[in-house]
């Protein structure tokens, strides 16, 4: 009975304040969408890290005819130098760092190059002897790139040691900044949402002051008096959170899944299922937001 009563109170409260309730829904929708977008970016970063950190290599490029670095002064790498370098990479001193070593010849390099730039007219003008041969080193710990760099970069016959991870880090830092920006917008919108919820509850409490006054007199408990107001805010915020979840799911399905994944097939993107992980968090956040702000408002505006 009490439950039915509280539910009917909530219903009448929502109807009476419809325009305010809608604005609460929209503001929580926008703010939680930005929170979710930041979450999506973080998920995407983690996904890419997981995917790429297993694949990134340190490339030890060897000298070719027109290399300019000092260690290549003697011209292209000799058979002997190449064997020394390979020997060092495979020696016991480096086994704690090096997981595996692959040799890429100039012909293989040309093959990869042609794959990568298949649509570019540049391909036809490149020949195998312009591309450096290299050792592709998989590290046990990708962070230990410096060890390889120090040991090999000045060795005769080595042109340059390059860490592919550095490139990725740049991409990740851009993405991190974007997610920070999304969080900032989310923060501002969340403040809006909290204030708007507080105002809505105040209005609602004012328009129902007669009822709450009588409830107090006949001895209704604090919960029965306050719960309809709190739940009103929570319901509006949860609806906003559901809309935000829908928007994020749509974004991942149609923008990431439908477009980005087709354009960049070799990149690992997050899936719709991973987006669904965000949904409970968003709903919880929305409910918490509304619950706390309405509780604080009620303490000031509804005497019990």
């Amino acid at each position: 009975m009490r439950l039915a009563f509280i539910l009917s109170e909530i219903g009448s409260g929502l109807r009476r304040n419809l325009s305010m309730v809608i604005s609460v829904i929209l503001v929580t929708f926008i703010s939680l969408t930005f929170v979710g977008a930041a979450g999506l970016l973080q998920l995407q970063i983690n996904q890419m890290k997981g995917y790429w950190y297993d694949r990134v290599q340190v490339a030890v490029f060897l000298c070719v005819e027109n290399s300019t670095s000092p260690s290549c002064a003697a011209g292209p790498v000799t058979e002997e130098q190449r064997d020394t370098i390979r020997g060092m990479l495979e020696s016991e001193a480096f086994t704690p760092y090096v997981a595996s070593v692959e040799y890429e010849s100039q012909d293989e390099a040309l093959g990869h190059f042609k794959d990568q730039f298949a649509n570019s007219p540049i391909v036809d003008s490149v020949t195998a002897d312009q591309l450096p041969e290299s050792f592709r080193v998989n590290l046990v710990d990708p962070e230990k790139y410096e060890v390889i760099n120090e040991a090999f970069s000045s060795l005769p016959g080595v042109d340059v040691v390059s860490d592919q991870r550095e490139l990725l880090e740049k991409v990740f830092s851009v993405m991190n900044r974007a997610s920070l920006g999304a969080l900032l917008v989310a923060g501002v919108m969340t403040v809006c949402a909290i204030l708007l919820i507080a105002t809505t509850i105040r209005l609602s409490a004012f328009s129902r002051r007669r009822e709450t006054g009588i409830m107090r007199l006949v001895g209704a408990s604090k919960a029965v008096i306050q719960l309809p107001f709190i739940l009103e805010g929570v319901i509006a915020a949860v609806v906003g959170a559901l809309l935000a979840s829908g928007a994020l799911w749509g974004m991942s399905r149609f923008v990431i899944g439908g477009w980005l994944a087709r354009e960049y097939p070799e990149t690992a993107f997050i899936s719709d299922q991973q987006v669904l992980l965000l949904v409970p968090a968003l709903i919880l956040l929305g409910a918490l937001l509304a619950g706390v702000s309405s509780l604080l408002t009620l303490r000031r505006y509804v005497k019990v």
Partner: protein
Amino acid sequence: MIRFENVTKVYDATSRPALDSVSLEVDRSEFVFLVGASGSGKSTFIRLVLKEDSASRGAVYVAGQNVANIPSWRVPRLRRGIGVVFQDFRLLPNKTVFANVAFAMQVIGKSRAVIRETVPEVLKTVGLEGKNNRMPHELSGGEQQRVAIARAIVNRPGILLADEPTGNLDPTTSMGIMKVLDRINSNGTTVVMATHDDDIVNTMRKRVVELRNGAVVRDDAQGIYIGETEAVAE
């Protein structure tokens, strides 16, 4: 049922106290008129019984319990034992007579079956049979006050507090209301009625407690209303 022990209530330190060291005892099933001019402390008395305010000094006992010792979460229980009626009725304008009375039962969690059974009974007690589905604005002032009384007693409180319940009503209608209150009192409910309607007090011949400037100046077992001339002379 209600006991005040040297109760003083100060709202604002600069002005005189609303109640000044009042000691008073109201027994179970008693009918007491609280008379006195406006500002004599009648409403403050009612607020203290309901624990809407707490006494600055002294102790207020309701049903044997010092209200100062009731924790805030138990206050609703105290109020369930007390019905209140006001001069301005305080009905919910968008609810029918039945719904207004039922509201008092709904909010404390009574079942629908109990409500359906009790509300018509109580409406009959206050003389509103057959008006279940009227809206408050379709009723006369006297009828509205009867609805308010029905709402106050529907949960069978031991005490009924009435703050000038006839203040907005003409003398004939007022007498009707008094009959209702008298009937409720004879069923065992303690009634405390604040009023400055001398006709009613003189007709009813009940106990009269007169307050002036926050102090009890008279307590007659079967009193009449004599404060008016003195108050005017003052």
